[in-house]
């Protein structure tokens, strides 16, 4: 995973904007490693579909893939969620500053 992929909020939010993938995130939120089979358990979708969704999450930096023997596991990257939150907070603060300038501009103009 390249640093650019980690810091791209558009990719991150796109990855989060899907109910199935969000379900995976919530499932992995306990911090435990899970196999593709475990993650897809109880879901009416194929193993390939599960793997595809996991790959989207992985490219967005939201999950990490690890290998132990022949089994591939996925684990949540908590810090990626935190990055998304911090980025939104930054956008939020920028709007505060921008709107404060608008207010001054309008109120102070003749």
């Amino acid at each position, binding site marked *: 995973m390249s640093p*650019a992929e980690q*810091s*791209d*909020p*558009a990719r991150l*939010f*796109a990855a*989060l*904007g*899907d*109910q*199935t993938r*969000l*379900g995976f*995130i*919530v499932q992995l*939120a306990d911090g435990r490693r899970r196999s593709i089979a475990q993650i897809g358990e109880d*879901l*009416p*979708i194929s193993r390939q*579909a599960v793997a595809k*969704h996991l790959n*989207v999450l992985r490219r967005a930096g939201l999950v990490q893939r690890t290998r132990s023997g022949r089994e591939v596991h996925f684990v949540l990257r*908590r810090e990626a*969620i*935190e990055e*998304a*939150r911090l*980025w*939104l907070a930054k*956008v*939020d603060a920028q*709007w*505060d500053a*921008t*709107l*404060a*300038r*608008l*207010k*001054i*501009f*309008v*109120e102070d*103009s003749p």
Partner: protein
Amino acid sequence: MTDSIVKTIDINAPVDRVWNALVDHEKFGAWFRVALDQPFEVGKLSTGHMTYPGYEDYSWEARVLAMEPMARFAFEWPATGGDKDLMDSGVPVPEWTLVEFVLEPMEGGTRLTVTESGFDKVPEPRRTNVMRDNEGGWAEQVGNIRDYVAG
């Protein structure tokens, strides 16, 4: 964490003055700190560059979607996340967020509400419908993530 940002500010000036500061591209540029190449026009692309100190070499790009006099001004812009390499690469950013300014007259002035939404846009045309009918699922699950992160 939500998929949109909503901001409200009360301005001690009549709606027409606030409206004018929004849609007059030179006035907009003065407080937004951007030099725009052309007036805003619905359906047209707006181009320019930032004048915010330290960000003068950042470009501005937006597409004007609505100009409803004294009521609503909306545009969309690419969700570059301030990634300058991405902006300068010429590679189109598939995700754009929507910015909406809504004006309401109030006693003594104008209430302005700004909403930026679309952070959760999914570029993939193929989306599975699994769990889709779980109403409010997105908000709820994001709430779960937030609780987890905060916890």
